[in-house]
């Protein structure tokens, strides 16, 4: 057998954003027909590397060779022409256009639009990953899970020879992820080179023919096929972890363990929803008739498949969504129609799942983003004038306490990695006078170290008398953190499960699927 040719060859790739060296000389070879996993924690430089492969950024130095030819991408079109398909972690779809139009945009081979052909291909490709998506729907109306499905379809549209996926499973159900892996393996068998970017070691071990570990913009380790085949995963795992975190591998979530459920005084709930229905003006799945209570010192989890009303529930409580019926009582007060600002002042906080789109203002400094919800308030603003020293001081304090990795408090928040953006949001919502926090998908797309950090903060907050409502599509996370779990399906709560009961996982799954079939 001849030596396998190289589908993609990266040599000495460097990229710097201001003070952040995102990629510091990365070499990488990817062969046709193999699944190559890029493993690394947030901020390791994975997303930067991908954006250069996708033609969105240009490397400061280094060479990209595709199929033996050195390429210089000046736009995503160049990358597509080189037959590289990319699935991004954050949606690249245009929300105000329909599914169909988005596909036409991505696929346009010439001037003419082949509508019918595009529709057929869409149905063919999308059904591979689950339910076919109605091409006439607006992308804005799709759930995050459906959008990700669409991203995959788009990447596969032009039959790429190299397929790059950035954290593709973070929004999929376990069954969806398994189906995706099967499909990726099939694709690899047809000679496509698959690059899977992930921070989940188990995914990499299960799927990868090769694994490359990135840390701080450099290649920290490489594991080849022979090694992956011969060494048992149990032995590889700690070695990979060590390379990923450089000896500072994450421990279990810190903070005191949750108290048993019975210990809690029944008392008056801090937050009570009484038969709340949301208005459907904002699109997406509304909620119907939802009643629940959250007490101080308790984490209530909300489980469910993505797009089953999580966003409506979170926004009806803490955000700007209107309520069509029922009452939201916070600390004995009806906060249903209350403006967001007053809810915040009462201590009702919301950590959004759309961190980049809604959570932060990317071009503004980390310091201002940390104080985004206190603009105009003393001591940071006096008589409308900003006190820079106070702002800087508070920001430094929060950066230290929440371990936000940023070159400085003045760096634009948009330059930070996903995990550090999440830490900004947590610091902002939990740091001052918070009483109840609604967390929407708090660990989506984050690496193990950051997730454990997030969980630690939540535990600490709750142990000091805070209350937490955690909406998540990750059942393991809820089982670990929550006391009680409500299962949301089709916008309704279809059942409750005590998280520490032995069969909790099975019962939640059962409710999820049973509720979903209604």
């Amino acid at each position, binding site marked *: 057998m001849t030596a396998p040719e190289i589908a993609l060859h990266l040599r000495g790739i460097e990229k710097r954003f201001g003070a952040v060296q995102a990629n510091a000389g990365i070499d990488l070879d990817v062969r046709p027909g193999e699944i190559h996993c890029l493993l690394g924690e947030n901020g390791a430089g994975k997303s930067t590397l991908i954006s250069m492969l996708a033609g969105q950024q*240009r490397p400061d130095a280094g060479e990209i060779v595709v199929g033996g030819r050195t390429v210089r991408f*000046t736009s995503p079109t160049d990358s597509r022409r080189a037959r590289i398909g990319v699935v991004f972690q954050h949606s690249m779809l245009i929300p*105000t256009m329909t599914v169909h139009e988005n596909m036409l945009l991505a696929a346009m081979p010439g001037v003419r639009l082949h509508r019918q052909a595009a529709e057929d291909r869409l149905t063919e490709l999308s059904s591979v990953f689950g339910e076919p998506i109605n091409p006439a729907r607006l992308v804005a109306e799709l759930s995050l899970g459906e959008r990700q499905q669409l991203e995959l379809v788009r990447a596969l549209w032009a039959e790429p020879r190299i397929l790059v996926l950035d954290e593709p499973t973070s929004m999929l159900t376990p069954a969806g992820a398994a189906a995706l892996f099967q499909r990726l393996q099939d694709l690899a068998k047809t000679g496509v080179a698959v690059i899977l970017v992930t921070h989940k070691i188990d995914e990499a071990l299960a799927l990868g023919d090769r694994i490359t570990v990135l840390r701080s913009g450099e290649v920290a380790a490489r594991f080849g096929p022979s090694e992956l085949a011969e060494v048992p995963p149990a032995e590889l795992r700690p070695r990979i972890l060590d390379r990923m975190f450089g000896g500072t591998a994450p421990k279990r979530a810190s903070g005191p363990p949750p108290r048993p459920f019975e210990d809690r005084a029944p008392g008056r709930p801090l937050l009570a929803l009484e038969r709340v229905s949301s208005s459907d003006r904002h699109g997406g799945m509304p909620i119907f008739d939802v009643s629940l209570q959250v007490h101080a010192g308790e984490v209530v989890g909300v489980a469910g498949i993505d797009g089953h009303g999580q966003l409506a529930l979170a926004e009806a409580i803490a*955000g*700007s969504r209107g309520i069509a019926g029922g009452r939201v009582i916070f600390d004995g007060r009806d906060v249903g129609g209350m*403006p*967001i*600002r007053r*809810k*915040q002042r009462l201590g009702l906080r*919301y950590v*959004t799942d*759309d961190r980049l*789109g*809604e*959570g*932060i*203002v*990317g*071009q*503004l400094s980390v310091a*201002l983003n940390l104080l*985004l*919800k206190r*603009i*105009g308030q003393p001591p940071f*603003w006096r008589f*409308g*004038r*900003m006190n820079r020293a106070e702002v800087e001081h508070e920001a430094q304090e929060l950066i230290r306490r929440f371990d936000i990795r940023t070159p400085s408090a003045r760096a634009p928040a948009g330059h930070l990695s996903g995990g550090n953006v999440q830490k900004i949001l947590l610091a902002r919502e939990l740091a001052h006078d918070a009483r109840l926090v609604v967390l929407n998908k708090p660990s989506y797309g984050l690496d193990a170290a950051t997730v454990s950090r997030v969980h630690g903060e939540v535990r600490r907050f709750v142990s000091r008398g805070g209350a937490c409502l955690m909406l998540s599509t990750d059942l393991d996370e809820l089982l670990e953190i929550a006391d009680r779990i409500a299962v949301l399906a089709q916008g309704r709560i279809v059942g409750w499960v005590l998280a520490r009961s032995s069969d909790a996982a099975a019962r939640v799954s059962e409710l999820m699927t049973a509720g979903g079939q209604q």
Partner: protein
Amino acid sequence: MSAPARALDVLARTVAPLVLAILGSAVVLLALGANPWAFYADVLRFSLTGEGWQQTLTAMAPLLLISLGLIVSFRAQLWNLGYGGTYLLSAAVVAGVAPAVFAFLPYGAATLLLLVLAAGVGLILALIPASLKAWFGTNEVITSLMTSFVAASLANLLVKGPFQDPSVSVPQTRVLDLEFMLAYVPGTRVHLGVVLAFALVILMHVMLTRSSFGTRIDVLGLNPRAAAHAGIHVPRMTVAVFVVSGALIGLAGAIDMLGLWGYMRTDWNPGYGDKILPFVFLARLNPLGSVPLVGVYAVLATGGTLAAQRAGISVDLLTLLVALVLFFMVIVEYLAARHSVGRSYLPRGIFKAVRA
């Protein structure tokens, strides 16, 4: 940004289009048979030496106020394009009622009332696109433009109707007595409106860059969803921004009438806003930064008019020059973005605003 990066940014993004436009105009001058050296020397001579600099400063006053109005709204990524009609209607109202107001009130009170009146006209005009945007999400690009057309026609109607001076055959307002015009800065022929315009530039600069109001405007402009999420009352903020913007542009009309012209004719339109628009983006929506750029335009406008007359060419050369500035800005934007030099002229959300 580091100091060298900032210098490169200013050089490539701000100075380059201006220099290229001036060179481009020189080529056109050559083609017209004029001597570009002599022309530009004339421009500088007429606009800066002798009493020219006073004329240039006077010309800057309305331009600065209009650019301030644009900067406030553009920073919030609200595209208030109603500047044309707003300026004209405020000017017409001030020119029309000024003789009567001065007849009834003492000079100081009358002047103040007229300034407030002009700002009020601008404010009320701005309320139309502002409320439509705030509560119905209507695209303000369209509504402010439409409001502007109506306001400009209304200004004409007023000058031809109730405000017309019956003693003259041309439709125009009564000419304001010189004693009622804005006072000059002692020793010069620069009226106090110029001082007011510069004071407002500093005030607005501090407000936009140092105050909580300015921070809210930036947050709203950069990410409206994050603004709503952070508890900023987006509709209220939208109205506030438009109102400030409209009032400033209205004020420009008053200052121009009371300080420089003293009367208004029908179909008169200096078109300040259209000419100053590229310079506002060259200044990256920074009030202090707009001063030198507005200054450059004022030099070209005052000196250029006289120089063109002397060289026997059309004054339209100025419009060509502004067009060339825009033209080279587009080229610079394209090239600099490809090579990651400096910051874009355009705030990020502009495409969204135009499409929505």
